[in-house]
């Protein structure tokens, strides 16, 4: 029975691929990582709270990586919701880590410390100066989110929710599609904590390109 189901699903996948030209698997919006891939090995990263983080030694069941950039209005439009999410998850076995990769002055560690303090970041915020973390995860823009389960397999990547916010010049946040109704990162975390697959494994995150040094 399982073999028949597998054959049918494979056939459906091939038909979809033939007709749409699009792969059925995730990884569509990430040139490096696909859902199911393991968290690569990394060194340590300096954090805004003056500690040093080794990502591979994080002990919580779920690891959330949020690629951020202080200067990016799409990040500014997401940060309040990210803070709320981190707060809602603080009693659970979830570790939220913000990552800044750009080498712009406003995105480097001294500015990150000021920003985290000013806007009340309640999660670890690390600087990826080598850009190794961003490169290995295929993080190409900010904000983009990655959720890893207890086996440190990628279970979700993409948007925080279905209505990305953009901070306008007057400081107000404009949600692209009105109030968010689908919370992809939160749902992926809860599914991972329950040992289930994320209901939506990948979405198209858009925003400010991360500037990698060539």
């Amino acid at each position: 029975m399982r073999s028949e189901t597998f054959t049918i699903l494979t056939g459906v996948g091939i038909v979809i691929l033939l007709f749409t030209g699009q792969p059925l698997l995730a990884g569509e919006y990430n040139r490096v990582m696909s859902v199911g891939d393991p968290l690569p090995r990394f060194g340590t990263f300096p954090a805004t709270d003056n500690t040093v983080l080794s990502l591979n030694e994080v002990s919580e069941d779920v690891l959330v990586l949020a690629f951020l950039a202080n200067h990016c209005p799409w990040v500014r439009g997401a940060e309040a919701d990210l803070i709320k999410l981190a707060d809602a998850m603080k009693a659970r076995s979830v570790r939220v880590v913000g990552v800044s990769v750009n080498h712009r002055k406003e995105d480097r560690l001294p500015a990150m410390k000021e920003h985290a303090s000013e806007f009340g970041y309640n999660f670890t915020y690390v600087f990826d100066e080598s850009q190794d973390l961003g490169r290995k995860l295929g993080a190409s823009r900010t904000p983009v989110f990655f959720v890893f389960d207890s086996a440190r397999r990628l279970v979700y990547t993409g948007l925080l929710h279905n209505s990305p916010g953009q901070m306008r010049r007057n400081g107000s946040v404009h949600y692209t599609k009105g109030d968010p109704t689908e919370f992809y990162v939160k749902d992926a975390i809860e599914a991972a904590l329950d040992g289930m697959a994320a209901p939506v494994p990948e979405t198209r995150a858009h925003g400010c390109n991360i500037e990698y040094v060539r």
Partner: protein
Amino acid sequence: MRHALRWLSLIFAFSACTPPIPSVDDTGNDLKQVSLVPITYIDWTDKLKSFKGKIVVVDFWATWCSPCLERFPKMIGFHQSYRSRGVQFVSMCLDDPSDLEAVGTAREFLRNNRATFHNYLINEDALEAFDKFDLLGIPAVFIYDRSGILQFRLTGDDPRDQFTEADVERAIEGLLDR
């Protein structure tokens, strides 16, 4: 009255220190013609067809994108170098069309940079615009050949393969040689 006169003298002093914006660029193009035209994705695809016979370089940018603003003067330079060789430059602004302050800033930026080519503002929300152009982030440059076929898609989508202005120039030269 004395108060008003003080303000008037301040305004006069300020305007005397500020160089006037020229009405024409270095090659005589009327800067009053620098405009930012709202366009839907569908209308853009029609517009692209009207450029058939020319190589079309589309620079995606927004006022919120710092690297886009920094790179923009290079595009102006390319436009000046290549426009007589059948290359049409287009700027495609991805600012939120409902954010009038951002749109005003975008217009001012184009005028200050003397962007005397076709400047469009995508008249869709950001999710739709990025989705329809298959973009993840900006800056990005798309280059179409003389038949309107997208030949070069220069983006930052892959951290291992970032583009520079040298890639834009190489792509244009490559298409001119065909």
